[in-house]
């Protein structure tokens, strides 16, 4: 309980601060075309369809969801690697989706990314020194030419690799070490925000823990803000201050980690948490598992109204007609309960038997 109030206190403190990143109604539709010469748009994959959230200085926002929910597209939009169809991404009040040229370059310095696959995200023909030092080519103001080698070695040291390895190639390193190289590259320009897209999911359990520890240490040391995108719910819980749950291009529920994991009110979050295998055989019997039927619908043709309704056990006619808004459920409005956090469900309610051990 003390833990809980501490978490709530942290969230409140965060509320008073100015968010470093504000995402408002972000939309990304990928057009589906037909015909060879006269490409006619016949539809769109609605990968991200109206997402809003804030990121505060020094905090970790976890984003969870299954494959195809649009979480990686969100990462690319935040990095401006994809152009948003509509919506805003405000970095310190400035909309980065509208920027270009020099202004965009300046912002990009402060938002860096760590990728999922340490085997394909590093150029095999470049030495580690060149990989980590490459950001300095684009932003020479960060490290003058003579200083670069020293900076690279410092960065290697910071992420726990031997600084003498600068002349080695990526294939000479293990998966965990490569991910450290990727993190060093992300840190090179002293960014304020790091977007991590499944940074540890390609790693073995024992190595995963090393990388997570490293990321937490770096966050404290450099006051970094993380957007931590992953499908592993227990890792997200471990590292995040707040967590957002995505389903089919929409945010289903968002709140502090304790609110989401212990008091989920959206049926999808409840099902997701109940489906996570718990590493404790004693929990095998007592747990109620919600086994969802069917698969996630195609984002090219999402269901009307609430997108989760086709798999939801609470679905009624209203769910097909009205899109539920992401807001504190009326049931809990004005109440001092951890269930009073934003949830996009017409029938949002706590389900007492679903307490996660994730």
């Amino acid at each position, binding site marked *: 309980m003390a*833990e809980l109030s501490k978490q709530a206190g942290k969230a409140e403190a965060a509320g008073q601060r100015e968010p470093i990143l504000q995402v408002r109604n972000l939309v990304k539709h990928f057009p589906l075309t037909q015909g060879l010469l006269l490409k006619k748009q016949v539809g769109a994959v609605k990968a991200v369809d109206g997402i809003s959230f804030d990121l505060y200085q020094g905090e970790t926002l976890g984003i969870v969801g*299954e*494959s195809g929910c649009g979480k990686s597209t969100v990462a690319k939009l935040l990095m401006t690697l994809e152009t948003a169809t509509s919506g805003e991404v405000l970095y310190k009040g400035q909309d980065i989706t509208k920027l270009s040229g020099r202004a965009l370059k300046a912002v990009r310095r402060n938002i860096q990314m760590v990728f999922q696959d340490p085997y394909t995200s590093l150029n095999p023909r470049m030495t580690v020194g060149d990989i980590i030092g490459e950001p300095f080519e684009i932003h020479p103001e960060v490290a003058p030419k003579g200083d670069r080698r020293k900076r690279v070695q410092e960065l290697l040291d910071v992420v726990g690799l031997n600084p003498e390895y600068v002349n080695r190639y990526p294939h000479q390193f*293990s998966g*965990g*070490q490569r991910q450290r190289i990727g993190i060093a590259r992300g840190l090179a320009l002293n960014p304020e925000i790091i977007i991590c897209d499944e940074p540890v999911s390609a790693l*073995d*359990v*024992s*190595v*995963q*823990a*090393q990388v*997570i*520890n490293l990321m*937490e240490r770096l966050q404290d040391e450099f006051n970094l803000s993380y957007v931590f995108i992953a*499908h592993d*719910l*227990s*890792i997200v*819980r*471990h*590292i995040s201050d707040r967590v957002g749950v995505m389903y089919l291009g929409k945010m289903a529920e968002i709140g502090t*980690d304790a609110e989401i994991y212990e008091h989920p009110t959206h049926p999808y979050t409840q*099902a*997701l948490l*109940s*489906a*996570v*295998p*718990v*590493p*404790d*055989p*004693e*929990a*095998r019997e007592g747990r109620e*598992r919600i*086994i*969802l*039927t*069917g*698969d*996630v619908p195609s984002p090219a043709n999402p269901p009307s109204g609430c997108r989760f309704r086709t798999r939801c056990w609470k679905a009624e006619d209203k769910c097909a007609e009205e899109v539920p808004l992401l807001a504190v459920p009326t049931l809990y409005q004005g109440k001092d309960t951890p269930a009073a956090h934003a949830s996009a469900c017409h029938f949002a309610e706590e389900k007492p038997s679903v307490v996660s*051990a994730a």
Partner: protein
Amino acid sequence: MHEAQEATDTAAPLLDVRDLHVEFRTRDGVAKAVNGVSYSVRAGETLAVLGESGSGKSVTAQAVMGILDSPPGHVTGGEVLFRGQDLLTMGGETRRRLRGAKISMIFQDALSALNPVMSVGAQLGEMFTVHDGMTRRDSLAKAVQMMERVRIPAAKERAGDYPHQFSGGMRQRIMIAMALALEPDLVIADEPTTALDVTVQAQVMDLLAELQREYHMGLVLITHDLGVVADVADRIAVMYAGRIVETAPVHDLYAAPAHPYTAGLLGSIPRLDHKGKELHAIKGLPPSLTDIPAGCPFNPRCPRAQAICRTDRPPLFDVAPGRASACHFWKETLDDAG
């Protein structure tokens, strides 16, 4: 430890792997992937083989199934007894008849395990035409039945579809249907749900467990996921660098591991009461299989390592009935955990 187990059990094991050795002869040297693995599975039992990449868990399964890539892989020693018959010395044709009919396998990646240019109905039906000599017409009807068994909606209409037309979860169901088509006694599932999303993983694991109970099969579940193991396994064998380092009934192992590597694995999972603290990571990296450390292969990463660990390879010590640990200091490890 095997003697102890067999004495307490009246039923002989279905599968008994004894001191299996597999190596890969490559240009860069000989990689010793499996170095004396022994395990047994009884009918109706689920044995989880837990290990990280490179621990030899999948290679062991491939050697058991007889689908090892050879060359470069070679079984260099040991026995694989299925109902008392050694599969390794059996003739190719006899072994082929057993495969699929008595022992079958479920792979991790259904998309690459299924034939992309054959409809799923025809692929499933092939099981019956080849092994049971059924006509194509009958086999197709059986295939649809199997698809219904694994709860594929509109099975009859979808039997003519190709693998790419199904979702990941549905493809995995088709592979399960294929593995169980001839009601085998033993199924080896190699990371059957690793490629799937959590909610779909739960569906598929549930289905597999239900069918196992129904057919009373022995199941070898190969995985790296400590959560999945805790959910379904009866017994666990933990592998490291081609060896089994600990075997135990599932409840005992999670309650108190008797090997520092198992303890390390359990410690590296994020837990509720650890929020905000450092995870207990295992330091270092798994060894290269071409250059396994002398003594205990885990000694360079082990917090307990002493001089003896660098020189003497620990055998599997009996810890309790049905439990064994390959650690010189299993007693201390167990005491610390308990």
